[in-house]
């Protein structure tokens, strides 16, 4: 429902008379705002009947029921993992041609360098699967699933530093404060299982470079959307959700009684002020109460057989690892969590790439294979969307000292590699091309906005039609600029 209309409906007569001018003002304004009452929503009004989320029903039949987003924070080096550039070997330590860089702005970490020597990848690349996709030796297990995924080599963004870039890809805007992808999905589509959060975030340990960028809760925040749509970050140690267990001496019945009492008081507050956040708070208390039984069941991996741990690799037995989180994500998808996002940090290889990158890759490689294979064997891969990638790419030229065995790479927004799979995504395709320096895109560019539009599309959502009125704007995940569905990776 239109928030202003919603608010006006909440007004009591007393309040209406008390604030007459404002009352008339908002009533008139609500009739001027573009209505969302289409035939479809009148059949299935949001928040009532069969509706499950503010859209009432998906715009078109969805391919994806659920999604798992594997976020590599720090920007993985496409040059050492997926984007094979054999000619760079001959150009070792030669300067990157100005015609390729073409005056592009650089970060202050390398803009002062006197030269930009080319650092070829020291890793061996081979073609894999029927698709013949090139994958480096750092990802032997991912290489065995290339026929199940679509690799996009032509991702790009405008941001050149981590925080704006990750905020941009997560929320559609470089400036903090917009709702994240998961929050939009929760807001628009609602829950598949009311006993569990709709959007869950899992943070992982990592073994590469330990000085990594901080992750802020706003990356999975709800922005101006009602706050129950923000991601619920589960902890891997102790209680997955802090203070979820009842304190000693408080039984479930007493807790229930207390919640009912608090709800009543909150409802009174709501009637007095009409602030929708009060309802968000009530629903969060209720969700926490239901999670008291559903979350421990979710995070108790003791019912997983050994062959499952084998599938995800030995790390999957260690709480907090990426592999453990992948297994958790699959459990959540199976039990009706709409969207989970795993963050894995430490991909910011400015220097000592050969020391750190193999560890980073080892953290995720087996688990990615395990996740896809597990989803496949459970028949869930057809309606679960999996996305893998970071906020931007890395440069072909070396940051710092270049030797035959050691190099570093700076941030590179003009091209990088991500992959996606499952739920209506073509299997075994490599989409987009870059020039021989992996510096500029030569074919089928995919902006991060296009990726977000495509993700929404797989969930049955038209990215133009999922919006929220806030401060005079119709907020959308894809913003005001044009976004295109990446049809080339969809079946």
């Amino acid at each position, binding site marked *: 429902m239109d928030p202003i209309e919603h608010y006006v409906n909440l007004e009591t007569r007393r309040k209406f008379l008390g604030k007459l001018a404002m009352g008339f003002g908002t009533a008139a304004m609500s009739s001027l705002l573009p209505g969302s009452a289409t035939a*479809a929503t009148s059949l299935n009004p949001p928040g009532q009947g069969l509706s499950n989320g503010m859209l009432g029903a998906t715009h078109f039949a969805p391919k994806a029921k659920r999604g798992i987003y594997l976020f590599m924070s720090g920007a993985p080096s496409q040059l050492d993992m997926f984007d094979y550039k054999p000619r760079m070997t001959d150009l070792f330590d030669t300067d990157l041609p100005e015609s390729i860089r073409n005056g592009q702005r650089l970060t202050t970490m390398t803009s002062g360098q006197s030269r930009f020597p080319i650092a070829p990848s020291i890793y061996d690349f081979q073609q894999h699967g029927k698709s013949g996709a090139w994958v480096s030796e750092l990802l032997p297990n991912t290489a065995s699933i290339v026929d199940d995924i679509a690799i996009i080599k032509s991702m790009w963004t405008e941001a050149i530093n981590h925080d704006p870039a990750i905020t941009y890809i997560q929320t559609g805007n470089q400036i903090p404060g917009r709702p994240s992808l998961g929050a939009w999905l929760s807001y628009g589509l609602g829950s598949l299982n009311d006993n569990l959060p709709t959007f869950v975030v899992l943070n992982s340990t990592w073994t590469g470079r330990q000085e990594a960028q901080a992750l802020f809760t706003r990356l999975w925040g709800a922005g101006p959307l009602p706050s129950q749509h923000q991601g619920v970050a589960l902890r891997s140690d102790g209680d997955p959700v802090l203070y979820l267990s009842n304190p000693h001496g408080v039984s479930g019945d007493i807790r229930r009684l207390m919640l009912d009492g608090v709800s009543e008081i909150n409802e009174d507050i709501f009637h007095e002020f009409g602030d929708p956040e009060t309802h968000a708070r009530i629903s969060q208390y209720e969700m926490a109460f239901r999670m008291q039984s559903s979350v421990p069941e979710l995070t108790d991996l003791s019912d997983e057989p050994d062959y499952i741990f084998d599938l995800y690799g030995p790390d999957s037995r260690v709480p907090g690892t990426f592999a453990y989180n992948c297994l958790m994500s699959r459990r959540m998808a199976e039990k009706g969590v709409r969207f989970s996002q795993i963050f894995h940090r430490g991909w910011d290889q400015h220097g000592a790439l050969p020391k750190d990158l193999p560890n980073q890759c080892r953290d995720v490689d087996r688990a990615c294979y395990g996740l896809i294979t597990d989803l496949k064997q459970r028949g869930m891969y057809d309606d679960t969307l999996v996305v893998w990638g970071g906020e931007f790419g890395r440069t072909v030229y070396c940051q710092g000292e270049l030797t035959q065995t050691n190099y570093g790479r700076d941030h590179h927004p003009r091209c990088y590699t991500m992959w996606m799979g499952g739920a209506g995504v073509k299997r075994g395709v490599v989409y987009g091309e870059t020039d021989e320096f992996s510096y500029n895109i030569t074919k089928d560019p995919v902006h991060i906005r296009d990726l977000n539009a495509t993700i929404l599309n797989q969930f049955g959502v038209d990215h133009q039609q999922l919006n929220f009125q806030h401060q005079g704007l119709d907020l959308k995940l894809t913003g005001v600029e044009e976004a295109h569905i990446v049809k080339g990776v969809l079946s």
Partner: protein
Amino acid sequence: MAEKKGSILAVQLLGGLCMVVLWWLSGYGLLDGEPQDTLWRFLGRFHPVVLHLPIGMLVLLLVLEFMGLRRPDSKVSELIPLVLGVTIAVTLLAVATGTMLAYGEGADEPLVQDHMRNGIWLAMATVMLGVLRTLPSRGTYYLVLLAAGALMVITSHQGGSITHGRDYLTEYAPEPLRRLLGLEVEEEVTAARVEDLVVFEHLVQPIMEQNCVSCHNPDKLKGELNLETFSGHLAGGELGPAVVPFDVDASELLFRITLPEDDEEFMPPDEKTPLNEEEISLLAWWIAQGASADQTVGALGPMPAQVDDYVTSVFKQMITPEERARLEDAQRELYATLASIRAEYGILIQPVEAGADEFTIETHAVRNAFDDGMLKLLEPHARSFVAADLSGTRLTDGGVSSLANFVQLRSLNLSRTELVGSTLGELAALPDLESLNLYGTKIDGAAVEQLGQLTQLKQLFLTQTPLEDAEALEQLRQALPNCDVQTTAQISPLTEADKTAKSYESS
């Protein structure tokens, strides 16, 4: 007096000359169908500007003559020579511009030829009127005047038909009048089901009428092609058949409507609205399925989603308003009933998309409570569901007989339920069931006979069941040759244990 006789003679001579010229023009065969980029084309376009003048003048002439006959002493008769003179002049002007227009634009279809011939005859008739009016006896004059009036009606109607299409006047004529005129009367489509629509008549033909027939009709026959009839599609035109059954690529019609819009060969030409994606996909589907004249939607092969959407939207337009209202009421009621089930039992029921009559079931939130009895609650609405995810519920073999009533199901997830498979054969009653997920159930080799009956399946998940290790598995694969039977061995190709080892080397 001699002067007047002289001028009468001049009029008669001039009239005779005009007649000869016009007679020659009507027989010359000037129209060759080639557009001319000359002054003629520019001048010809003034035809619509002047053509209404002879119509008005001739009517005025008829009125004046009629009034003159009734009251011979009336002064109006004095106007007649002037009006007649102007009539002749503007008729000749209309013929001249019309001839230039047809020649310049390269129009040569039968309707234009007829219009031109009649126009010339009309001009001859008016010239003749001028000559006849100089004679003392008026009998012939009146006869020709009436004939000219009749010819004017016919000619101007033909002209209008060239511009607006032949049925422009009668398109919205009331039904009784249409019957009286012997015109085709639109029959209400009585098909109660989408499947009963005749693909050519109800789907293809309307697209043709909307977009193609204004040029490709028996009168205009642009490119010698007539798309008004079914046989015309197959017969085609100058470039061979427009439609080749079963062969989309060889069908000129599809080729021309799918060219880039700025291509010279693109159809429909000249800024006319191009066919949209759905219309094109429908035509492609119809051709690929054999371009039949009388087969119904139900009789032809499976429809791609886009075609399905289009057919449904056409069907919704075709049903009567009363029927539509009834369907909408029924839909609203269905939504309300399902919503009450959802509210009461916590089963997630969702329309597959906005406004759909097909629903999906998900039972995650109530999986520990969902058993055969709860499934029975959904049975009264079984036909509304196309997908059911009952994974992890307490469903047993006893519930399968209920599932057999969900005849619209395309996808059924029974993974991690308490099934052992002794009754799965009953699912053979679900004709559209494509995907069945039995992951993690206890079904074993004994279930093969039951599963073997499900020949409609395209995808069957048997991973992590005792059955996938049973010898009977091969037997099942043979019983279901069209089904992708998924087992652990097939899904997990990674047998080289060293892959893990290798990825850990570097640490």
